[in-house]
């Protein structure tokens, strides 16, 4: 299971199995999507499989998750999301009403994101061979801006921005499983971020973007630091976390920095334009909570350092799998 948690184990699995098997330059970059040059123009192509339990949760369901997730992967690659495919793996006996609900929210999400679901496939497997319903979406987006994004563009002095309060999706889903008897005013943050991304790209020089899904913001910051061979220094107090989320995380023993989001992204921008970047983002509802959380520094290379509220400097490491306490 740790291999899906978005941390070091996922990365190792991806490197060892997939990159190896499908070796090509577009894949090797391990971005959220692949940028392809067709001669007539550049496009971005991405795919994602969605599994979530429960399938329906406050603020969303697996359907809009599957649309928004792929839309966001296209968006943070700098593309305008255009077309999606959708694949379903259904467990025998899965209620048709539930499937209708899921497809309806997919349609609504597609409408909201301005994309069309143009092809798809459905398979049914025996009872017990799947957990209700799995969804896979692939997406194509047009790369219309002449920008180059990626870790290689990042340099010391750049500002690191988070587009909104973190951790809402992961905590919402955990509580929605209903095992814990928690009443909390929480909804998933699932949302398309392509408009906010476009506004940001129009406003300031952007180095790179990532959507902070599995593994949370901490994992993205590590990807930035490792990929760029630079350090990311973040300020714990600057990272936006809603009190209800930090309260729930405290209770559940989770670190919000590692909790999944579905409508948040991390952007690295030219440090001189940090304030303008935040202003541009805050004009969009989906990123009205945007904040500068840290800066890129020359060293120590590959490390994410968090200035804690108590004045120390905590190393924010890439989790290997599910978090296990390190305290003796």
């Amino acid at each position, binding site marked *: 299971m740790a291999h899906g948690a978005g941390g*070091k184990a996922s990365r190792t699995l991806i490197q060892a199995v997939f990159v190896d098997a499908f070796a090509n330059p577009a894949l090797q970059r391990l971005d959220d999507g692949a940028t392809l040059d067709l001669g007539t123009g550049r496009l971005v192509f991405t795919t994602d499989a969605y599994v979530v339990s429960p399938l329906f949760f406050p603020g969303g369901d697996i359907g809009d998750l599957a649309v928004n997730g792929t839309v966001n992967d296209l968006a943070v690659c700098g593309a305008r999301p255009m077309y999606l495919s959708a694949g379903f793996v259904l467990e025998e006996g899965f209620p048709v009403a539930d499937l209708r609900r899921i497809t309806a929210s997919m349609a609504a999400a597609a409408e909201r994101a301005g994309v069309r679901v143009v092809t798809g496939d459905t398979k049914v497997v025996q009872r017990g061979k799947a957990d209700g319903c799995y969804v896979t979406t692939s997406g194509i987006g047009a790369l219309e801006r002449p920008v180059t994004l990626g870790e290689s563009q990042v340099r010391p002095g750049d500002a690191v921005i988070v587009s909104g309060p973190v951790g809402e999706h992961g905590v919402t889903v*955990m509580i929605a*499983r209903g*095992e*814990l*008897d*928690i009443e909390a005013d929480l909804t998933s943050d699932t949302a398309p971020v392509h408009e906010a991304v476009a506004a940001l790209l129009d406003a300031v020089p952007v180095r790179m973007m990532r959507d902070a899904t599995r593994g949370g913001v901490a994992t993205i910051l590590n990807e930035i630091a490792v990929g760029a061979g630079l350090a990311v220094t973040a300020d714990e107090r600057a990272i936006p976390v809603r009190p209800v989320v930090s309260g729930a995380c*405290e*209770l*559940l*023993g*989770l670190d919000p920095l590692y909790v999944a989001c579905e409508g948040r992204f991390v952007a690295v921008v030219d440090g001189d334009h940090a304030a303008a970047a935040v202003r541009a983002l805050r004009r969009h509802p989906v990123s009205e909570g945007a904040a500068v959380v840290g800066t890129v520094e020359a060293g*120590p290379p590959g*490390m994410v*350092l968090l200035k804690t509220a*108590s*004045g*120390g*400097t*905590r*190393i924010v*490491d890439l*989790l*290997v*799998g599910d*978090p*296990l*306490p*390190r*305290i*003796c």
Partner: protein
Amino acid sequence: MPGTGARRIRVRVEGLVQGVGFRPFVCGLAGAHGLSGFVGNDPGGVFIEAEGEPPMLDAFTAGLTGQAPPLALVERVSVEPAEPRGETGFHIVPSRRAGVTIGLRDLAGGEFALVSADVGTCDACLGEVRDPADRRHGYAFANCTDCGPRFTIVSGVPYDRCATTMADFAMCAACAREYRDPLDRRFHAQPVCCPACGPALRALGADGAPVPGDPVEVAARWLEEGRVVAVKGLGGYHLAVLAAHGPAVAVLRARKRRESRPFAVMARDAAAAGELVLLEPAAERLLTGVRRPIVLAPRRPGAPVADGVAPGGRDLGVMLPYTPLHHLLADRLAASYVLTSGNLSDEPIAHRDEDALRRLRGVADGFLVHDRRIQVPADDSLVRVFRGRELVVRRSRGYAPAPVGVPWPFPRPVLACGAQLKSTFCVARGTRAFLSQHIGDLENYETLRSFTEGVEHFCRLFGVRPAVVAHDLHPEYLSTSYALDREGVDLVGVQHHHAHIASCLAEHGHAGPVIGVAFDGLGLGDDGTLWGGELLVADLVSYRRAGHLEPVPMPGGAAAVRQPWRMAAAWLDRVCGDASPALPVVARHREQWPVIVAMARAGTNAPPTSSAGRLFDAVAALAGVRDTISYEGQAAAELEARVDPAERGAYPAGLVEGERVVIAGGDLVRGVVEDVMDGVDVGRVAARFHRGLAVAVVRAVCAVGERAGLRTVALSGGVFQNTVLLEAVVSGLERERFEVLVHSRVPPGDGGIALGQAVVAAAHDRLSR
């Protein structure tokens, strides 16, 4: 004058022979036997050539071991014949450095010298400092061949002034004369100095600006006014306040962001220490010995120490001055003072001047500093006394880098990276394992840096180029990722509790197999779950998990470590389920309790653990001792402190004997719950729990021992810093006629892990060759 029968020998002495007055001793010994020749240091130890009558030469070589100075540790003396030269006199010659002197093997080749730990000020030096007629009267840096800074000022080998931070100071004529005089106490004492030529004190205000006047006088006045003073000592900066000054202690706590972890107190002398704590003879020996650790001893009722110094504890940590500076301050104050490492909570001790001034600004109201650089940071060591012997809890200044000798040679040089909290590392080659000083919690960047710098320094100092690198199995320990990032080495992952037991075996030179009881907070098991109450059948190569404490979920993972009441919820639910009684601890956490229980039941972020430390936490919370902690092991330490020694009862605990022997911790919890419901005094509850757990451990060991045919037991893990439990377990095992190995010089906690990893890695290395 060499007679006609004169012979010449070439002698090599290995061991801890540098920085301990060895060369002057050799000169004296040679003189006493009428020999000519020379002695010097090289990276491998001491080299000697001596010429004279054969019987005298024999007596001389015998004396090298037999009469060596008290701080020296002669491990090997090898003698070979040489061509007589007919010279006169016996001299100390300049040191030979690796790579410079022809004929010396390269550092990696096999020879290396030992660097001495720092040594507390000797009586002779102290006498001079206190003598108004002496030229070192009131001098904070007096030292001689018998005492003074060593490890903390050494930057390289061989041990010579130019390879220490004393290289910054040129000796005056008077000091040079002492240094060169074979009859002087300071003959070849590398850090020799005096007020005319050596380091000097300065007092600085809160803003770092110099303050006029005698610096010790200024600092003493500040302390008397209730201010916090940063004092640059031997291994780093400390923060000081008067121990009896309640408000000052409170201010120090607030500024240091250290809620309740006890502070250590420096007393002027043993008599003054005796007014603070009850000193049994062994404790007094440790207190006054040359290592000068902090000694934990029962606090005397009515001791003139503010409550905030060591809240919640029965013991108080005391130490005696170990440099002239600390003596001067203590003499001037005529009162004990708190001396705690100069850092914010969790950071390593500050030791570089600029860094210290920056980090301690706003914490200290003034600074008492000097201009001798600290090369290597070292915290004060911390020891307890168990059955008249020392039980080192934190091994640092005064102990490191003394090697742990093991009877099994390391086939190739080893680096062991240790654990995560209270981390130390270990480099080893030959038959010696150099366990580092206490580094601290690796979650901090500053600590990680001091770890990596420390590893490099040790490798340089002891000529170790690691070929084998050992690490914990926990993939997220930063020590593990440090190990995994090393290239061109053989990696050996060592299970945490196996390393604990191996550290105990190494300390005793015992190769096993033994029944290892490893009780600690948490360590990753080979099944991916968190262990911590383990019975292993182990030798150096391998182990088998033969038994353990009943596992329970840790609701919230690390949050359950910070909040022992969560462990109380998990255990109470395990034992009583829906019929859980309305204990006070339940009422105190009424709102969150159902969620925590639900997390435990559903396994939501609630990894199972067999940890003994977490069982102590649960009992501490159930008994009303402590619900949340602000430092590691706090709840367990306070539960131990509450034990009523007069209580003889013990909660009965069952054993479940299947493939493994499982101690039913739930039975102990049931006993606690029933007594708490009946209003039994917490002291008796604490005692019955300790004694009940000990009985259960002894029974489990008997069961494992019978099956495995073993009669020797090794006790390790941080829980065995608890001397109440340790005593009960050891005496119980002795009644069952087991041979019991317990820690003394190597910490039972995670500070000893690196040593255990090193010997396990070496055992694997031996097998694979």
